[in-house]
């Protein structure tokens, strides 16, 4: 278990100053992806634009960035079947 911080760089930049305990980075990454998807969904629901370059970053307690997840990496949009 370790504490990871998930920062959001969206229309508001939101620095996570509380952190949360996860088993490992993979579990933290899954939580970060779920959070990013929820935010994208909220934007879509309210007819707000989604900037695919916006991102969440996972850091450790020393603020070292361990993973970057851009919104474009967690969405699949198809034009044709």
């Amino acid at each position, binding site marked *: 278990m370790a504490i990871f911080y998930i920062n*959001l760089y969206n229309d508001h930049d*939101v620095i996570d100053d509380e952190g949360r305990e996860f088993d490992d980075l993979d579990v933290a990454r899954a*939580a970060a992806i779920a959070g990013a998807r929820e*935010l994208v969904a909220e934007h879509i629901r309210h007819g707000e634009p989604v900037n695919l370059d916006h991102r969440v970053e996972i850091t450790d307690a020393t603020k070292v960035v361990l993973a970057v997840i851009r919104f474009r990496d967690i969405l699949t949009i198809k034009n044709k079947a």
Partner: protein
Amino acid sequence: MEELGPSALQSFVDRLLVRSELSAVEQQAILALPYHAAHIPARQDFVHLNEEIDASCFVASGLIARFGQTASGVRQITAFHIPGDMADLHSTVRPIGVGGLTALIDTTLLRIPHFAIRQMAAVYPAIGEALWRDCMLDAAILMQWIVNVGRRNGRARIAHLFCEMAIRSSGDGTALLRYALPITQEQLGDAVAMTSVHVNRCLKSLRVDEFAIFQGGVVEIHDWDRLAKAGDFEASYLLADTAPERQKRLLKAGYAVFAVPTPSRKKKSFNI
């Protein structure tokens, strides 16, 4: 059996008196209820889903949550209970953990045996009615929480919860503009059905707009009217029955005897 003294249940009496008129004898009967105190450390479950229980839990200090859980283990917090609340009063008549209970921070509970509560309500019908009203308040709050997670956007959910807890924390129908809510963003997310990333985003938005700040387990409300508007919050579900004219003893009017016809009905049976 650890005891904390005869006035340990005074805050429960105070809570009931907000909505119900009770005589000095009736108040004394509540204060005389037997109990044993239990200290529960933070993040420990103390009532499990579907567990059979024989006592109701009064929160003497700390903060607890009721929760439900999916088969895959994901939790949804369905209630916060603060000091002065009898968290599972309803279990007196349905002694099974319909929701689990967990301590969010270090908490002291007074476990009051169901038989003692039932006995008291049988001897003092006005207390029975006061307890019934107390259960109704919890049900009204739950209904609002369902509307919250079902129909409000993320920011509104948190704004609504902050307004609700401001009134509940005061205990007198007013709203505290600064109060302790010692939970993590993750726990807040579990209560409003949101990821902690989304919670964080909405907290930032409420802070930037100068409606409210949530930091270090304290909620500070800067603009009540705008926070309430953002949260689609209307306090009547918390304040029902608290006006002086509503505190009259309904029992006085309740002893008429009715002959109730009992028509035969087709029924569907369930194996429960």
